[in-house]
């Protein structure tokens, strides 16, 4: 009952005219961002944070706008997967496996409708799951002390690195680079500067927005220059959009199963949407009677991963809102948004600022309906936008990145640092080092150190205190398993190859 009254309060904010307009704009922009190759939910949201901040939106409006963009980008990713065989973002990769073959068989419209509805089912059910589980987890989180939080951060780094990368050393390296960067600036406890080398600009530390925009958006430019903007031509013609009711009925089971798998994958810290869509696809394939048609245009192979990826996007919000630990790259960016808005996620958020949480949840529900309406009848508009050539798109994105940072900080130093992060992102991706742990490290580094030091104050410097509660021990065991297990599982869970050419992947 309490949930319903809270939800009613949320809707009273989300259904005002102004907020509704913001949600619609966010959904529209998000779908475009998701659909464009080379722009995914992470860098889309990252680009828009500084801009919405400089526009002076209040916390709830900014949150509604950017979470609509986030959900929109999750929907949009499927469009280029199906039509171009280029995933607009990494979670949409599995959709290419059956979506592109369907489009080649002249069933592009059907594939778009099925995947749109699957996205809706996945995201809607996941948002309902968020409503049910988040308050519960928030109550559990009250029992977390500094030792438990420290273990939780370890878990996030270990699982994110362990599952998301093919080389544990590289994932750990990325996380450590991020943590190392987070140390720059004034030490909170003693007030002494660390690693600033006398540079005044570094006293406040490295702004995580600078790092995010650099690593995600600026690095992309270098990749496009190297590839000369290949892979950006439209290949498939789209006929009239009709709703294929029969196909929707056939794929209902696949959508529901995909949603369940995706939601669980999303709730696990570090796993995220890519894993959700991957597991949903593999799960659906393994129980299907017609296994051999997967990869050749089976609509279930479109419905399951698409439901899984959107459900995971919703599920990833559960640990992000209740514990302040993001479940994926994109939620890491959303965490950056919350911190920019001075909202500290965690159990206290639910108790002290319920209006923020519930208007966010209500606007997610609204955004879903808007996105379904936008993505099924109006999908042609987005297909047109896909034909924007890379030589206009990428310079434009770069300039937006610069303007965002410039209007936020007004300093050349920060923009130079952003370019530096762009180079770092390029080199790291060339070396197959994941970039998301760097972001996570910068975001969580200070909180992680703070919790370690507070734990040591409580225990007078006894390191065994970190393992003093059953919750902490459980988290440490999960962290170690999450880091080590993928080494053995990797042989079993090989990603199936994308139908033809290698796309410019965008890490999530």
């Amino acid at each position, binding site marked *: 009952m309490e949930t319903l009254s809270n939800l009613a309060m949320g809707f009273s904010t989300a259904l005002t005219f102004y907020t509704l307009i913001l949600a619609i704009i966010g959904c529209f922009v998000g779908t475009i961002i998701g659909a464009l190759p080379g722009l995914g939910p992470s860098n889309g949201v990252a680009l828009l944070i500084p801009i919405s901040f400089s526009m002076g939106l209040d916390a709830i409006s900014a949150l509604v706008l950017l979470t609509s963009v986030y959900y929109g980008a999750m929907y949009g990713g499927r469009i280029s997967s199906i039509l171009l065989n280029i995933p607009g973002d990494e979670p949409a990769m599995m959709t290419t496996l059956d979506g592109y073959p369907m489009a080649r068989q002249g069933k592009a419209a059907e594939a778009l409708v099925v995947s749109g509805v699957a996205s809706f089912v996945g995201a809607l059910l996941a948002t309902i799951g968020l409503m049910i589980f988040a308050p519960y987890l928030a109550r559990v989180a009250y029992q977390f002390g500094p030792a438990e939080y420290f273990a939780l951060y370890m878990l996030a780094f270990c699982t994110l690195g362990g599952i998301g990368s093919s*080389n544990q050393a590289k994932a750990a390296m990325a996380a450590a680079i991020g943590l190392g960067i987070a140390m720059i600036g004034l030490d909170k*406890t003693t007030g002494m500067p660390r690693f600033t080398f006398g540079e005044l600009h570094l006293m406040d530390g490295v702004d995580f927005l600078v790092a995010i925009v650099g690593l995600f958006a*600026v690095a992309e430019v270098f990749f496009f*220059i190297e590839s000369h903007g290949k892979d950006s031509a439209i290949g498939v013609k789209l006929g009239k959009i009709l709703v294929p009711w029969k196909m929707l009925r056939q794929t209902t089971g696949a959508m529901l199963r995909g949603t369940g798998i995706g939601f669980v994958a999303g709730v696990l810290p570090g796993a995220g949407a890519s894993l959700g869509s991957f597991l949903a696809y593999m799960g659906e394939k393994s129980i299907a009677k017609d296994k051999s048609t997967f990869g050749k245009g089976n609509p279930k192979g479109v419905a399951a991963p698409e439901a899984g990826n959107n459900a995971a996007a919703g599920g990833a919000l559960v640990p992000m809102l209740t514990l302040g630990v993001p479940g994926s790259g994109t939620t890491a960016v959303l965490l950056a948004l919350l911190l920019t808005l001075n909202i500290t996620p965690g159990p206290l958020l639910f108790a002290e600022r319920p209006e923020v949480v519930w208007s966010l949840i209500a606007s997610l529900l609204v955004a879903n309906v808007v996105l379904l309406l936008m993505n099924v009848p109006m999908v042609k508009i987005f297909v047109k936008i896909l034909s924007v050539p890379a030589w206009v798109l*990428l310079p434009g994105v*770069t300039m937006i990145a610069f303007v965002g940072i410039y209007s936020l900080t007004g300093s050349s130093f920060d923009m130079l640092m952003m370019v530096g992060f762009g180079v770092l992102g390029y080199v790291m991706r060339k070396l197959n080092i994941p970039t998301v742990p760097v972001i996570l490290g910068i975001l969580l580094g200070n909180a992680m150190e703070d919790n370690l*030091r507070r734990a*040591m104050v409580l225990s007078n410097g006894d390191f065994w205190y970190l393992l003093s509660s059953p919750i902490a021990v459980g988290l440490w065991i999960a962290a170690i398993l999450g880091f080590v297990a993928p080494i053995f599982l990797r042989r079993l869970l090989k990603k199936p190859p994308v139908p033809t050419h290698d796309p410019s992947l965008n890490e999530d």
Partner: protein
Amino acid sequence: MIKGDRIFGAFMLVVALGYILSARGIETSFMSDPVGPRVFPYMVAGVVILCSLVMILRPDPDEEWPAGPMLLQLGIALVALAAYAEAITPLGFLIPTAVVSGILSWQIGGNPGRSVVAGLGLAVGLFVLFRVILGLGLRGLPAGWGF
């Protein structure tokens, strides 16, 4: 046989050692805690050193790295972006944006004519978007030229 992983690992090894050296110089104040401000940086540097050693000893197969002309292209892009960061404050938004987005457009698309159009169009279009529609405080032209 040169491997990217080995170079990066060696580089990070040096960075981590420098990091430790720099961390040794962090001053503590009278109101410190049992751990102090140096321990966590030491732990981070330790992880980096360990990972660097793994990368040096067991490198993954190399990716294809850009060579010769492409490296020059990437260098040009880097210089252009860095110059943009320095130029936007004194010169305003329009001129640097037109020039730099033109350069990037030419590097991606390879057609000079189209790139000029793209650069000019992006400069004007984005200026209208940011200044007029979104109301951000951007100066269009160099200081003293109006706008």
